[in-house]
């Protein structure tokens, strides 16, 4: 309706074209190229024929680039756009392996540690994603999982440092060093993931989304800090 009125007024809508009127019986000549997405089958074939090394190197480079993004968290959309779950899987498995075999006298606590860490990380990430979606976020499911998984990287580094420090001895000084390192990495993880995830929320609800992320990384940091090898 509004557009009809606009064309009836003839004024600001079609500036310069007010006198042009093409009726239906005048054939329009010329070539029309339709931008149909027929490129994708060609692309598939081209990546299917390449050597395996190229495929692997491309994926490794993508993963590596995302690690760099986590280390220097700027607001970039590369992490969000090309999400992948390789990095989170590698980080989760390495963290679970490093957390194994400690903090208990009995031998049968070594097994559940691995499953515990795995389950905590993945279900925690799923819960946080669902929560952020229910609060009205615009990020998709796997993008959020990707970001949360990649932001575990500082905590994995903290775990490595803790294990090395524990090799030297377990006293008050080592505890203080471990505490400082874990707290710093926890803060870094939370800030990095907040930088990526909080932008996709309505602005007045950022706190509601940040709190579960804080809790999630707090639980993981707690597991790292209380790790004592036997």
């Amino acid at each position, binding site marked *: 309706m509004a557009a009809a009125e606009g064309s009836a007024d003839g004024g600001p809508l079609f500036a310069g074209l007010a006198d042009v009127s093409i009726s239906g019986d005048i054939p329009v000549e010329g070539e029309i190229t339709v931008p149909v997405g027929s490129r994708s089958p060609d692309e598939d074939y081209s990546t299917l024929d390449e050597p395996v090394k190229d495929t692997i190197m491309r994926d490794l480079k993508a993963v590596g680039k995302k690690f760099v993004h986590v280390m220097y968290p700027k607001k970039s959309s590369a992490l969000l756009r090309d999400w992948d779950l390789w990095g989170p899987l590698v980080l989760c498995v390495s963290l679970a392996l490093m957390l194994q075999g400690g903090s208990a006298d009995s031998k049968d606590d070594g097994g*559940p540690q691995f499953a515990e860490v795995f389950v905590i990380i993945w279900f925690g990430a799923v819960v946080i994603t669902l929560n952020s979606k229910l609060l009205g976020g615009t990020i998709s499911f796997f993008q959020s999982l990707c970001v949360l998984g990649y932001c575990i990287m500082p905590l994995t580094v903290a775990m490595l440092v803790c294990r090395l420090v524990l090799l030297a001895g377990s006293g008050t000084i080592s505890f203080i060093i471990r505490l400082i390192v874990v707290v710093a990495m926890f803060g870094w993880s939370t800030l990095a993931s907040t930088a990526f995830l909080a932008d996709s929320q309505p602005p007045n609800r950022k706190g509601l989304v940040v709190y579960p992320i804080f809790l999630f990384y707090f639980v993981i940091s707690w597991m790292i800090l209380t790790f004592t090898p036997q």
Partner: protein
Amino acid sequence: MRGLPAPRSAALPRRPPRALVPCPLSPVPCPCRSAPRAAAAHPRCLVPAPRHTQDGSTAHPPDARPRESALPLRASHPGGAALASGGSQRGAGTMSAAAAGGSGGRSGTAAEWGGFEDNMQGGGSAVIDMENMDDTSGSSFEDMGEMHQRMKEEEEEEGEAGAGEEEDGEFLGMKGLRGQLGRQVADQMWQVGKRQASRAFSLYANIDILRPYFDVEPIQVRTRLMESMIPVKMINFPQKIAGELYGPLMLVFTLVAILLHGMKTSDTIIREGTLMGTAIGTCFGYWLGVSSFIYFLAYLCNAQITMVQMLSLLGYGLFGHCITLFVTYNIHFHSLFYIFWLGVGGLSTLRMVAVLVSRTVGHTQRLILCGTLAALHMLFLLYLHFAYHKVVEGILDTLEGPNMPPFQRVARDIPLVSNAVLNTTAKAIALTL
């Protein structure tokens, strides 16, 4: 991102349009700016198809208004901008509002045409948009419609081109025809399969049912947390309970974290299962189980309360538990714990009891309901404290048995380091004894 937010008024846009040639297919030229993807829908002209941002054109239904009162199933919109529409319904004036308006406009137009009625009923999922992973275009059914149209145009073009040329044209016509047939069959099968899959998926994985319960602001959560410790005075008038699930869920998870901390510090050893599993099972089991039980009792005692309200009430009642356990897992005074138990736990229990009393009629019913709730709530706190505290006490008592009288409770503060040292010392002493 996707263009500027659309003007709310019905006034005409002042800028010259991007598309210049009026389209012979549409009755009215469409002067508004639109996403380049919509431009591909009308291959005969350069004017984008009449489904785009809400610039007040004829073919558009009004904004996103009808969606606000609709069921949550309807309120979501398939596609990458699905959740943005949730944001726009709340009046958030962000970039996503334009995209949501655009996609809302587009799907509204589709519904108007009636071509996709059948599909719109099933396509309400907002969780995992498998076909629109990193693409923020509109509905997949729109794309199917576009593809159909494009294919038809191509068919006609190929037919014309075939008629215009010589033996190449004939050959092309034949090949074109067979190719078209095959493509159409494949396309139809794809459509049917996708429709079935998305229907099944939206049936089971639709989290939009929970969406209204998470519609809170941080200030509201803070207010409710504070209020959960303040017993109400007016019990003759039914008190309002907010049916919200965000706060209770976060409180349960916080309780899980605190419990985990308590179990680690007291060196609880769980033989069958994991620490985390036990903590989660305990907290969630309490929240869901006791809520259901009290809801059942409320049904018997004719109290006016719904399940979500009960979940919310009990969830906020766990705030007192969180505070108490957080303090007493770190400072191991027994008398301190009893003070907190009675004070903080008692306050939150009183609040829950007062709210329930205000919603129940009859003395016996009030007594049954509130007595049960008070007992369960206080006993839970007692259990949480003692189940994971006794282990440390047990070790200490056996250590210092010959030196100290058995029932003397000593105030002690066990930081993490000395805990490990304590354990190694305990082992060393046990070995030497």
